[in-house]
């Protein structure tokens, strides 16, 4: 079947052609298809160009949450792209096609169970002066450093899970004395993010950044501080107002958690984090109705062994990937999977990534960092400017600086400030990809037709799927610009500007904001 255009076989001619396919979800995407026709028939157009489809915005039925199960529908580029957008940071050119060929299950497992150590592909990032990043020392370089890992890693799932738990156990450098402590926390999260939740919670409870952020290192038997105990229950493991714990449980757990301490050094800041038995409250405590001489590991254990922990965990994890709630049967099955696996995270994520709701359900808005990383991945860019830090901050998300301990609000990413920041991210990304309309040495083609202009722009981003009306609008823009050409000197330059406009619009389009 994979014959060159026009090759003959038993009286049939084989043609490869590109077509625009509407999968019925309002998304048009480009597929290459090989067909064979009789020689006498007129071959299809080799490349129809971007073709708008009229029904692209048909109302979709509200999603009925599916019972627990495995998605069995079509797994093409669209589905693979969603998988890469939500379980990673979007496709690099060709990656979605590659994944689509694997089939859904293998595609998921290829992401969640990568072989070997993660590698960073391509040139290392540099700051605006061309110097290596100093993530532990320079403000904003911590953000660039992690963003770069999201862009260049060959194991995006691991980074995405670390990103999810950075948001879950949201710790901000605002309350931590050294950036290095945040980087260390990142390393801790990264190493446990697909493993055991128990170990994740235990290791973060004694993590120096966390001990500062939520006062765990200031809590002693002489005066226990409730801050960490409260958030461990409310935000990390059990959830508020579910009847999981009382104010007394918080107070008693705060006593159990006492003993961690650190020193202050005028040069280095906080140092020497340690458990000091002298500061630990060794009296009996009653947590969740259980009495004992509990210590900090007991306090954690009582939380993750709490009968209401698993339901909290799976619902929160689900919401990181799917915007609508799971059906009761799905939730129950996920809880069972979680508990029977000894509270391992990865099997639950895999079940979510294979669930029908993941592929059939509604779109989500990409977090700003995912948008930025995805943009760079699609253009094969590496970081060459510190602008990415303030751009991301303006877009509402600076890594290592979540707004508070409950993390970022994923429901509310887009407004006029943050959308403008995303626009400027695109402008920044196109720094080396746009055309200079007035460069006589490299004139833009004077005769580029409308269709080719759009195809060229789409190809630059690896053929992202655009909704039909957006694509139609881009065709319209191309025609409108062509219509403005009245003098011969405008032929090339206006077309170059048109290409720049198309690149900008594709990347800022609603489609590119969604996963």
């Amino acid at each position: 079947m994979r014959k060159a255009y026009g090759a003959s076989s038993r009286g049939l001619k084989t043609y490869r052609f590109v077509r625009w396919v509407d999968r019925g979800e309002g998304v048009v995407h480009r597929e290459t298809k090989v067909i064979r026709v009789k020689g006498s028939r007129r071959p299809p157009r080799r490349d129809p160009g971007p073709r708008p489809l009229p029904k692209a915005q048909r109302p979709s039925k509200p999603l009925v949450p599916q019972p627990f199960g495995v998605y069995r529908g079509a797994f093409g580029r669209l589905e693979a792209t969603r998988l890469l957008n939500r379980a990673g940071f979007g496709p690099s050119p060709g990656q979605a096609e590659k994944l689509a060929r694997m089939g859904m299950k293998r595609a998921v497992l290829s992401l969640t169970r990568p072989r070997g150590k993660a590698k960073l592909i391509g040139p290392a990032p540099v700051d605006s002066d061309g110097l290596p990043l100093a993530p532990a020392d320079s403000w904003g370089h911590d953000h660039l450093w992690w963003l770069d890992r999201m862009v260049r890693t060959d194991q995006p799932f691991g980074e995405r899970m670390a990103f999810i738990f950075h948001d879950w156990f949201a710790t901000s450098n605002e309350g931590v004395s050294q950036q290095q402590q945040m980087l260390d926390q990142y390393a801790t999260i990264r190493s446990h993010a697909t493993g055991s939740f128990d170990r994740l919670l235990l290791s973060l409870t004694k993590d120096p950044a966390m001990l500062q952020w939520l006062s765990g290192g200031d809590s002693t038997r002489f005066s226990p501080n409730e801050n960490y105990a409260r958030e461990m229950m409310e935000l990390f493991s059990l959830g508020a107002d579910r009847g999981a714990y009382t104010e007394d449980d918080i107070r008693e757990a705060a006593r159990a958690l006492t003993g961690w301490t650190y020193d202050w050094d005028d040069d280095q800041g906080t140092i020497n984090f340690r458990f000091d038995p002298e500061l630990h409250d060794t009296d009996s405590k009653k947590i969740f109705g259980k009495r004992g001489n509990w210590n900090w590991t007991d306090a954690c254990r009582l939380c993750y062994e709490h009968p209401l922990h698993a339901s909290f965990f799976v619902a929160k994890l689900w919401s990181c990937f799917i915007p609508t709630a799971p059906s009761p049967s799905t939730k129950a099955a996920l809880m069972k999977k979680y508990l029977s696996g000894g509270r391992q995270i990865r099997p639950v994520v895999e079940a979510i990534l294979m669930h029908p709701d993941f592929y059939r359900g509604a779109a989500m808005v990409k977090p700003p960092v995912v948008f930025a990383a995805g943009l760079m991945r699609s253009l094969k860019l590496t970081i060459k400017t510190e602008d990415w830090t303030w751009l991301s901050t303006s877009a509402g998300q600076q890594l290592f600086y979540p707004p508070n301990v409950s993390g970022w609000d994923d429901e509310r990413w887009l407004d006029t400030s943050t959308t403008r920041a995303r626009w400027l991210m695109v402008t920044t990304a196109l720094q080396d990809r746009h055309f200079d309309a007035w460069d006589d040495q490299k004139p833009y083609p004077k005769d580029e037709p409308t269709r080719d202009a759009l195809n060229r722009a789409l190809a630059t981003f690896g053929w992202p799927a655009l909704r039909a009306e957006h694509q139609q609008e881009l065709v319209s823009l191309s025609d409108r610009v062509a219509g403005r050409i009245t003098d011969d000197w405008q032929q090339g330059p206006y077309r170059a500007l048109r290409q720049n406009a198309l690149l900008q619009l594709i990347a800022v389009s609603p489609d590119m904001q969604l996963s």
Partner: protein
Amino acid sequence: MNQHNCCNNYTRSKLLQGAAAQAGQGLPAIEPGMPLPAGTGLTRRRMLAGAAGLALSVYGASKLPISIFDVGIAEAAQSNRVIVSIFLDGGADALSILAPTGHPRYFDLRPNLAINPAGATPFSEDTSLSWHPAAAGLRTLHSEGKVTVLPAVGYDDPNQSHFTSRHFWEVGALDTGGSTGWMGRYLDLTGSDVNPLQGLSLDGSLSPAMATASKPVAAVEGVTGYDLWSWVDDPVTEELYRSFKRFGSFKSDSDALNQARRAIGSTNSVRESLEGFSEFTAPVAYPDSDLARQLSGLGALLGAGLPLHCVSVSADGGYDTHSDQKDDLARNLQTTCDSILAFQRDLESRGLQDRVLVEMWSEFGRRPEENGSAGTDHGAAGTAFIIGSMAEGRMVGEFPGLTQLDEDDNVRHTSDFRSMYCSLLEQWLGQEAGPIIPGAAKLARPKLVRT
């Protein structure tokens, strides 16, 4: 090591940034089990109000074309009275702001954090209390009879979660499920269909207390330097923006897609019209702080005769002082009180002082007994202040003392925040509280406003 003191729930207003999910289609949870901030789920549109020279986010009233609001603002009658809610985010330590230095137990409970009575001015209405030196701005206004103090305001069965307690205050009810704010319900009942400035959040995102069910309300953000720079030049730029605008205009039934499209449409509107609103000059000197900038801007808006009615803003800094309370609290309190004093002077110099009343509140007070980190943990009753030339200027509810604390060893309340709302509605806004505050009939009506 800045802000190491707090448990960092306090910047929750950040959670509300950005557009929201579609109205009536289910409310997104910030965290499982956490009460949703009122206003979650309201549609949000951005506009530039030409009449106001402001970039606005407009919430609610999604069926109306955005342009109608510009007309609405231009034609709206200037509101006679304005209420400004100033939120001390994080649970401000009432026992430092008005320190019970005349109560011996205070010094037992606060061996390190007690305010030194030697350097503090006694509170004239109850000399067992002393003003924090950093609250000098508030003290000055109180001495002029322009501050009504509620020294122990709270509610029964106090909740010590920032999120939950703040939510109660925002919705004006002890209801974790409430989805409209108390000022929002007031506007729903009495407000305009076309003037989003009637409920204005100055933090750039909708204040939950302002969340309405049907009437439009707005948030303002910085309005300078808004451009959409690209590699496109004229004349193609015009076509670029035209297409961008159209991206924002298509209809869809997908929440996320709508959110993206609305944001794009509004972003372009702001770009189109954002010119003209340049620097204004305040008639009085303000301190250098975010709150001061917001309040001086508010002064300018009111001075320009814009139809504002309910306004909301957060004070500088965080008040969640779990550790190292002394310096942080003093700094934040100083900035906040100085800003409020400047705002009052601004209003007075503009002749607007009888039209504006400030309500300053926090989600709870802090525990009387200090913790070992030179900080205080979450408590129960706190303070609230009604500030302005029309404030009654007489304390509401006495300070309950420190000998009889509640079962969690926290200060008992002697006034209910819902009573405060009832009085503000009836005495200031001229609206019967019954339809707005649940259980209003059984709530007291302390005198907060001069008649």
